[in-house]
């Protein structure tokens, strides 16, 4: 039984189509992330699921229940807001107890459940405080506890970590996922931070301009982007375009040649001769050959390029290296210092070159 299902969801504001036909099938107990840039429709979709927005078209099912037109208070959801939305005039205890009191749960049980929820987010003993006395991270955890204490059918999170500093964000990613898994609750998570999405999701739906451009596990999204938008949005990539020129010789490989005669060997897969392709290569898969390098693997690409720019990032150095008319992003360990103008040899394994289908997708 699916935990949550969206069918052809459409939402229009005036002349803007924010959500343009979303179909989603979320498994019970799964945490699915809607990932995309600002304005892609992810928050609108989430708010439709919550009931804050009524869609123009389409249906929303929570379990077997059709909830499309139900108000938020009838959907049995838990919502975590980006700015926490804790009620400032109530203590932490009352913030958590509010939803429980509405359900006519006896006082003794309320106390127990509130304490348990605070334990879950590691804030026991904070029951008597007011939100203004809490730090950002603590407020966020209380917001999470408030959404979970009522034991909803589905947990909805709207960029809950974006107001926290980087370190806290990283910690909270794991906490949220652990909490979700230990409770087995279906969750929909919205973010524009792809590292966050990759870290805590079971599956990711990458959105752009109101539609889902690719859906898959974090590994699939990262290693097999199905269109240029996803390849560019997830991780870092360099893009090179060319035409498939050589197929006959090698059964496993093909060669793609660019307009300025740069030849790159790639995995053959189901490419056909003269096919136009876009190749994406991630910086971490390109190695700069030095005397001390391991021998170049057979069939790997050995291409000559010129260093254009360098940026010191602490753990690596981020280079822009020119390959003909193309610019590749390459990361090297911080000790390997190259200077602009230097000619280098790049090793690119064919299996690390992603072929992006040359179809008219968004992005």
């Amino acid at each position: 039984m699916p935990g949550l299902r969206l069918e052809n969801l459409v939402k229009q504001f005036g002349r803007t189509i924010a959500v343009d036909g979303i179909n989603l099938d979320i498994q019970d107990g799964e945490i699915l992330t809607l990932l995309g840039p600002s304005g892609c429709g992810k928050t609108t979709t989430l708010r439709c699921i919550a009931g804050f927005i009524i869609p123009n078209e389409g249906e929303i099912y929570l379990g077997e229940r059709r909830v499309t037109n139900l108000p938020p208070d009838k959907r049995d959801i838990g919502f975590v807001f980006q700015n926490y939305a804790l009620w400032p005039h109530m203590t932490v205890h009352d913030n958590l107890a509010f939803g429980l009191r509405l359900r006519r749960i006896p006082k003794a049980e309320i106390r127990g459940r509130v304490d348990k929820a605070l334990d879950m987010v590691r804030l026991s003993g904070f029951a008597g405080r007011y939100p203004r006395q809490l730090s950002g991270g603590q407020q966020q955890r209380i917001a999470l506890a408030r959404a979970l204490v009522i034991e909803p059918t589905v947990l909805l999170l709207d960029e809950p970590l974006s107001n926290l500093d980087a370190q806290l964000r990283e910690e909270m990613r794991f906490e949220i996922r652990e909490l979700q898994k230990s409770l087995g609750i279906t969750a929909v998570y919205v973010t524009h931070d792809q590292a966050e999405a990759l870290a805590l999701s079971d599956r990711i739906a990458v959105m752009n301009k109101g539609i889902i451009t690719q859906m898959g596990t974090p590994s699939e999204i990262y290693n097999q982007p199905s269109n240029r938008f996803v390849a560019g949005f997830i991780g870092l990539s360099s893009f090179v375009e060319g035409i498939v020129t050589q197929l006959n010789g090698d059964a496993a490989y093909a060669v793609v040649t660019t307009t300025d005669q740069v030849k790159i060997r790639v995995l053959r897969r189901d490419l056909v001769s003269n096919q136009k392709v876009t190749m994406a290569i991630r910086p971490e898969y390109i190695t700069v050959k030095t005397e001390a390098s391991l021998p170049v693997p057979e069939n790997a690409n050995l291409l000559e390029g010129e260093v254009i720019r360098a940026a010191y990032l602490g753990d690596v150095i981020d280079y822009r290296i020119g390959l003909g008319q193309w610019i590749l992003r390459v990361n090297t360990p911080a000790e390997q210092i190259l200077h602009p103008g230097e000619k280098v040899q790049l090793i690119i394994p064919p299996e690390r070159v992603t072929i992006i289908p040359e179809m008219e997708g968004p992005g």
Partner: protein
Amino acid sequence: MTTMTPKRLLLKSLEAVFLVFLFFLIFGPMVGLVLWSVAIRWFWPNALPQEVGLDYWSQALGFQKSLAIGAVSITEAFQTSMIIAVLVVVLTMVIAIPAGYALAKYAVPFRGAILFLFLMPLAFPQQPVFVNLLLTFTRMGLTSTIQGVVLIHLMVSLVFAVWISSAAFKSIPPELEEAARSVGASKMRAFVQITLPLAAPGLLASAVFVFLTSLDEFTGTFFIGLPFISTLPMLLYASSGSNLQFASVIAIVLLIPSILFMVIIERFLRGEHIAGVG
């Protein structure tokens, strides 16, 4: 500590003189009021009354009943003023709270026009407006009734109450209500338990403002209230030419609610509510 040059001394002295002047400007009239209220005889050019006593006070408060000094009991006018003020506050808030909420939360069509409409009564000179109202009210049988006066006061206070109420509701982030809805609260419950308490300081301030405005309202009350409705400001007006002592007593009585509310508001708004919202 910088040395006191002659120039600095001069500036400091001027500053002191200015502050004393300001002090007298603000408190002088009040001191004058208090002096006049206890003056039995006070003729120019004496700086202080020649004879003081509480006669005017006891007449006003109804302890003494003599026509000799021309002061009458103000208790009835006081009651009338209070009843009208309370009615006006209740009716204004009953209208202003939902109206302010709607204007703050929803994209009400012609929002600007509606607010402008509320503003209209105050945009014109008062006397012509009230004279015309007098004619209308006479036709409707509302002159010289409590209802008529309450309506006049409503007209004057509604615009402020609606503006302030709208601002108070606007200052509350919509997510707070949405959070309540998401844990199972109906629209009404979310409003009553979340929105209203948070808007309370602003709403209370506007209620106090409406109360004081109603208490002090004169022109409209004068036109519509006569002859049977008598409020404190009308009594004040009637005696201000001839009986300065009596007028001072009424003026001080009118001041008391203002000062009282100022103290209450300062305590209340400084307390948990404002801090809780912030």
